[in-house]
């Protein structure tokens, strides 16, 4: 087995890459607070995020052809010690998360200045770093309990970040409170599920868990554990009826936070869900297949339509995008539910593509908010003339959201349709296309408001500052680039899908 060859003592810096990706932001967070210097906080945060991004990129390069890296924290071998395990699937997630944070941070500087009082900036960025650490940790770890720990790190800091929106709108406080209640219940369910698994198998290492569950087969404890874990993580994913925390959280959080969270938090949760569905438990269990078929897929389709309809009628652009996120998560869950390579690859690709698409859109909306003072449709009317660059980027993001050929969003929807057809479920393929038409409607509403209406009289005409425009456009160009250079996403998502679908074998 490959594990034999990876049992080595890490000697060089490059062997430490998996832990470095987490450690750098983790150490930078207290550093910001201890230094307490407002002028140094942002550079430290940015450097930490950038370093983490470089690390993740190197990791992705080393596993994109298949294979994985196993890293033992403190030299303690699993199952006793904690293991970090990087393969194509989570390296891809690490790459996305660090990439988004590194691009959002320069953007955040201006946006945070206008939305949060200056004395809170140090703590804000420290929280941001902790949130980043948590998300990365969730993705990189190969230890089930460690997932819970990092999930809590990211969640707790997320509640604080969302609450920071209260300086602009007091409702951010209730939004954060609701999310806190919901998120804690989700985390509790998750940890209950882990406890049951531990009871049944006596281990917490994912690879070990997978082996032992496969050995002993399905029993009541394992089934209950599965249900608790799926619902617990499902809450973080915002599976349709568990999405209720999301619209308010995204709407009232500071713009930069929304852009970061929308592009990363739910995506990491989707990854964890896949990890547990495919690696820890196996799709060969009937109870898992049934759960996917009777719960995940119907709710995914419900999300695709219901959330899109809600988005169509929204009067607040930020809220519209939040609901569209819920609909898009439906596509990812549908891909997972298809249980074939194209479907899972579609989920992985959509995770990435939707991440960059939503980053453009939420950053664009943040820029509009900065200049017009609100994200309601009556505030963004006529912005196509006043802020041409921002508006153009939003249109590109919108096209990618619809899945127009030549944008990133097309690729993943294509894969999804392919997956459904391979399975012979052509009505589902048609539903995917139909729900994309709903996206056309709400994206058109945005375009109409920005380009075909004249601006409200009290809005001054001014383009967003360059520090915001550049990140927005990097993401917008990425939307188009990944629409044409399909090789990168295709290879990575197919490798990831193969690794995931290989079940516990993929963990060895």
């Amino acid at each position: 087995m490959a594990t034999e060859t990876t049992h080595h003592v890490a000697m060089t810096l490059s062997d430490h890459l998996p832990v470095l990706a987490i450690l750098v932001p983790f150490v930078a967070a207290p550093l910001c607070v201890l230094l307490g210097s407002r002028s140094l906080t942002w550079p430290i945060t940015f450097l930490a995020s950038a370093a983490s991004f470089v690390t993740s990129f190197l990791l992705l390069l080393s596993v994109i052809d298949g294979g994985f890296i196993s890293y033992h924290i403190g030299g303690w071998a699993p199952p006793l010690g904690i293991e970090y395990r990087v393969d194509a699937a989570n390296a891809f997630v690490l790459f996305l998360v660090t990439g988004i944070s590194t691009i959002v941070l320069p953007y955040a500087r201006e946006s945070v200045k206008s939305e949060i009082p200056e004395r809170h900036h140090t703590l804000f960025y420290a929280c941001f770093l902790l949130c980043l650490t948590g998300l990365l940790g969730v993705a990189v770890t190969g230890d089930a309990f460690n997932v819970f720990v990092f999930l809590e790190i990211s969640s707790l800091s997320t509640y604080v970040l969302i609450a920071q929106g209260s300086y602009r709108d007091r409702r951010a406080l209730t939004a954060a409170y609701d999310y806190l209640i919901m998120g804690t219940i989700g985390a509790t369910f998750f940890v209950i599920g882990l406890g049951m698994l531990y009871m049944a198998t006596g281990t917490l290492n994912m690879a070990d868990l997978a082996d032992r569950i496969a050995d002993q087969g399905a029993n009541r404890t394992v089934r209950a554990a599965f249900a608790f874990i799926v619902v617990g993580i499902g809450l973080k994913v915002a599976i349709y009826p568990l999405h209720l925390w999301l619209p308010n959280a995204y709407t009232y959080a500071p713009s930069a936070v929304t852009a970061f969270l929308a592009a990363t938090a739910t995506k990491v949760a989707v990854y964890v869900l896949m990890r547990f569905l495919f690696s820890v438990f196996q799709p060969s269990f009937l109870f898992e297949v049934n759960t996917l078929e009777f719960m995940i897929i119907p709710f995914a389709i419900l999300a695709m339509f219901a959330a899109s309809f809600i988005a169509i009628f929204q009067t607040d652009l930020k809220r519209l995008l939040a609901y569209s996120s819920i609909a898009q998560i439906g596509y990812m869950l549908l891909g997972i539910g298809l249980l074939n390579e194209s479907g899972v690859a579609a989920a992985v690709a959509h995770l990435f593509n939707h991440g960059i698409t939503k980053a453009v859109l939420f950053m664009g909306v943040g820029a509009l908010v900065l200049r017009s003072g609100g994200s309601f449709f009556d505030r963004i009317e006529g912005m196509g003339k006043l802020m041409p660059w921002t508006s153009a980027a939003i249109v590109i993001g919108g096209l990618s959201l619809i899945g127009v050929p030549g944008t990133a969003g097309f690729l993943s929807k294509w894969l999804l349709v392919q997956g459904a057809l391979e399975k012979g479920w052509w009505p589902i393929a048609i539903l995917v296309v139909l729900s994309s038409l709903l996206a056309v409607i709400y994206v058109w509403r945005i375009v109409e408001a920005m380009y075909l209406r004249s601006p409200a009289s009290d809005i001054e005409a001014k383009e967003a500052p360059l520090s915001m425009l550049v990140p927005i456009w990097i993401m917008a160009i990425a939307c188009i680039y990944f629409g044409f250079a399909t090789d990168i996403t295709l290879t990575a998502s197919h490798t990831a899908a193969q690794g995931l679908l290989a079940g516990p074998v993929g963990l060895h």
Partner: protein
Amino acid sequence: MAETFPIAFLFFAGAAGLLALPKGHARAALLLAVPVVACLFVWSLPEGNLWTVRFFNLDLEFMRVDRLSRIFALIFTIAAFLGNLYAWHVRDTVQQLAALLYAGSAIGAVFAGDLITLFFYWEGTAITSVFLIWARRTEGAYHTGVRYLIVQVGSGVLLLAGAALFYRESGSIAFDKMTLGSIGTWLIFLAFGIKCAFPLLHNWLQDAYPAATVTGTVVLSAFTTKLAVYALARGFPGTEMLIYIGAVMTLFPIFFAVIENDLRRVLAYSLNNQLGFMVVGIGIGTELSLNGTAAHAFAHILYKALLFMSVGAVLFRTGTAKGSELGGLYKTMPLTMIFCVIGAASISAFPLFSGFISKSLILSAASHDGYYIVWAILLFASAGVFHHSGIKIPYFAFFAHDSGLRPKEAPLHMLLAMGLTAFLCVAIGVFPGPLYALLPFDVDYVPYTTTHVVTQLQLLFFSALAFTVLMRTGIYPPELKSVNLDTDWTYRRLMPVLIGSVSGVLSKVWAAQSNFTQTRIRAVIARLYHSHGPEGRMAQSWPTGSMVIWIAVLLGFTLIVNFLS
């Protein structure tokens, strides 16, 4: 990716740059510079597939350079240059943009090595060129443009459908020699045929070309149909049916051309007839005949442009191109008259003019392979060409009865453009060597043998004699102020009547039906809004407690599914 880039992008970049420049000479100069640079690039390109983009699992070949594509790209860049020089005075951004994008699309299509890329550029030529018609900004031009666009886009759609079927059958999208047989190849063939103005599919040509602007027609005449000729030569060489299609194509436009009054429409018919020669060459499919097609396309673009230019100059100065209203212009437009006569001599294939050295390749190929009837038809058609283009155009425009019009000579840039084109026509006719060297296959052909020259001269003189006799005796159809209806009778007369009666009934049914659906749809939207709107149950912010209930419900549901299975 090699060190080169698609030539078409040069034109698109030029179009973008055009918008940055102020209106005026700078723009006109840019319009001239782009084709010149492109021409130099095309000249120096190595052969091979130079620019491949992988899209999903398909290889898109943007730059397939070989001798066939190069000669067509070369003449396209030359035509673009001449057309833009002729249009130096135009200050209309739309026309300038359209001219650049149109030429770029046509060149892109010539270099396309696969059917998907071809399709994109194919539609590109359709969409960009229609603006040259609409640029006239009259009601009639608008409707003509729409008819033109429908036909052209329709051809593109057929091409795409054909390409998709072809891909299913063969697993390849490469654009190479195909054999007719499956639905896919038939659709592709039909798409090419529409653009090439096959008999009965031809009407868009005579409809649209005379309707474009003075300068637009010159550009239009160069690209679309010749692109189709290229596509046929690439995809269906040696398809025997093409010989007969081509033969019919050379014949029937003659009769329409003789009775037509609008000189630009006459030219459009003679264009159709010339295409016939090329199609015959493709149908024969030997090296000699394909060379003939390429050479004829090359020469044809030049002299046809020259003729359109000279008639265009007349139209520009007098405001009409109707034979019945013109005449006697040689007095004040002598240079234009000379250029027109050179163009006429070229199209009639006078020895020492370009048409002679290209057309004789095709004629020789036909007789060489034993298609004697076809050969005879081509010969008759040659006489016909001389008749309507060679004599009729210059005669009615510049001589005939004096119309009393005393327009100024054409503007300098038009004269320059015509002069250059005329020079090329004569140069090619006198020194065919360089053109022959460019042809897709190696040539050992001597056009100037005694037999060729004598046969051709006999033909021309007897044809001229016939014209004179007919004119003198008054049998020749006089130039009447009329619009001749061709097969467009079906859609200009028959269809409106049919549609009118049917639509009366249909519209009532439709109104009732749409009224019904509209109220239904409104009701559905209202209901959706009630539930999904911002105030609706689905979109409200829920109390924390009820959110938690949902978690419990979902957990219960999952547990039940789990335990039952």
